[in-house]
């Protein structure tokens, strides 16, 4: 079970990576206009 001493700290770091991804998504406005991007496929050009 010694591997846990590596995995637990790794999981903490992983959480910070995910948080970084969320930060990117929120401040790029990914959660603001959730409908119109999906409807863009209806566009011809």
């Amino acid at each position: 079970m010694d591997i846990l001493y590596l995995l637990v700290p790794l999981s903490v770091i992983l959480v910070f990576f995910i948080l970084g991804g969320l930060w990117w998504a929120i401040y790029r406005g990914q959660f603001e206009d959730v409908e119109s991007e999906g409807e863009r496929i209806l566009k011809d050009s």
Partner: protein
Amino acid sequence: MFNDRSAVNVAAPHNRIDARYGGQVESPDAGVATEDLHFLDDPQEWSAFSRPDPRSTDCWESNVLIEGMHCAACALTIEDALLSVPGVLKAEVGAASHRARVVWSSDVVRPSDWMRAVQTAGYRAVPANDAFARERRKSEARKALWRMLVAGLCMMQVMMYAYPAYVAAPGDLTPEMEQLLRWASWVLTLPVILFSCGPFFGNALRDVLQRRVSMDLPVALGMLITFAVSTAGTFDPRGIFGREVYFDSLTMFVFFLLAGRWLELRLRDRTAGALEALMNRLPDSVARLCEDGTYERVPVRRLLPDDVIRILPGEMFPADGVVLQGDTMVDEALLTGESRPVARGVGGMVIAGSHNLSNVVQARVERVGDKTRFAQIVTLMESASTTKPPLARLADRIAKPFLIVVLLAAGLACAFWWGRDPEHALMVAVAVLVVTCPCALSLATPAAMLAAAGALARRGVLVRRLEAFEAMASIDTVMFDKTGTLTRDVMVLGSTQVREGVSVVQVLDMAAALAQYSLHPVSKALVAAASETAASPAWKANAVNEIAGGGVSGRVWSGDATQTATDLRLGSADFCGIKVSQSDSLQTCLSDERGWLATFELHEDVRSDALDTVAALHREGIAVHLLSGDSAQAAARVAAQVSITEFQGDCSPQHKLDFLRNAQQSGHKVAVVGDGLNDGPVLAAAHVSFAFGQAVPLTQAQADFVVLGDQLGAVVKTLLMARRTLRVVRQNLWWAAIYNAVCVPLAVVGLLPAWLAGLGMALSSLLVVLNALRLSYSAKRLG
């Protein structure tokens, strides 16, 4: 099939032709497409809705509102139209927000060029003067979401780390491993405390500075103490604070609270912005008479008293003034609540915000800007909303005694143990503080109200202020406005009297042949009634002439040539040249060469569920009043139809406000249901207010509940829901109180093991949330 052309066609059918605007203003294909926009090419005008793009010198970024837009296909059409203009670098149209952001180069193109492109596509672009206020709100919403997600993600991971400590058999978990898990939990709790909890600490600090107590103070105190104790337990397990950690309960509690606040923010934002957008309802530009007799298009802001302006049919008056030339009908329903168009001839007063319905008029401007009646109503409304009767929130009322009792208990426990075991004393005091962490108390109200708001939203009622539930549950009086609330805006045909020898159907068809050329609500009612009977729709008319304030005349003949053509007049008795007996209802006459032919009686279309709603409110023990800006007879007639005994007509906004204040001063809790702009001040000052979805944006902005559908019964539904919500809130508060009453004494005598305290904390929060969720299920019974 989704090429640009068909997208416009798809869009056209949704364009709601609002009866109030004479069917012209908001409908893109009705002839506003030629509006002169050159006044916008003056760089001085740009700064109101644009700002220079920081990245390049000659680029500007503009925000415009798009009118006439209803779906995503429209958004794409407009984007294409904008991008096809040379010099437009970027165009983004929000399908939900009805707003466009345009980046353009001032070397190549002027705002009027790309705005005209929008008009050619069939929509109307209006400079959005409130864009920068919206941007602030957006960044606020982003921050709230970010705080919540940080707390949520950290909570999940901290729970993972806490899990082994709960389930491991004694000896399974080595001390080193336990220590590692604690450190990991501590690292992940740090961002939650330092960042996510920011608003709670900020509010608590403000409370302390202002010497008052709200729920945020015990919450912040509880968080801080729990975190401090857990930190001590992690790094100094043999210290005076003991070796227990509560990271899992702490993060969960923070996440619950933040999730509640974020949902509340979204509710608020869904309808916010209406207030700022209101000024867009006045036109931006107007044709002003120059000295040489020509007209130039000038921005409304540049108008001065004594300027002479020209207003076309379908346009809105930009300022208060006096008519110099021309005869027309104006629609002042938004301001006065008067449902019938009013005639205005030479010398008549016209007011800003009303619509010109029938003819071109010239008017001399008398009052502009802040001095117009429109602006005065807006000001009245703003001041009314700041003097709204204060409703102390239930939870905030509890906060102070709660804080005192908890601190007292902790102090007593500490003093009790100090004599025998000083080291133990501090630990017990901390246990008391941790176990009373006011999770359940602070979640009790928002959880129940959010659940109720969600359930109501699925039934077509948007809740704008959560606190309104508390007020709604305790109201004892409902005041209805008439036009647009109890009645629909349109009129319907009642009884018809005809000359002997002619049939009702035939007369109606003849009248409808004339009426179809007019925009007057009476004409619309006649046309609608004729299309329902539809006997022989073959009557045709020509040489139709409409006289404002009088009626319509023209030559009518039957399509199958069985009857000779006759000259008909449709309108008031005077206009038809006949005498009729006085009646208190609205009548319209039809006459031919031989004189009187028929009399049509019209009345307002009372909503089908108005009677049931009033009856249901009476059953719930609530007094119902009717206040109307319309004439006293019209108010009396409608009141009789829906069996309201207390009514009042001829009310100005100030009258209504006085009436409401009187009722409030005599101790009544009043809800107001309205929709016109002149209801705005009353809505703002009422304990609770309802507006309908078709209402003026400003009215909606002031209302606590916005009813989306056409159902008056939503008021009753909301009332029942609010009462149920308050019941759940009370249950939640009782549960929190009982939990604390059991745990605090146990903690004081030192009998409560730390793990049980943590579990109790988490369970009490969960139970409160689950109890609140019952509201969304039980709401099904409301139908």
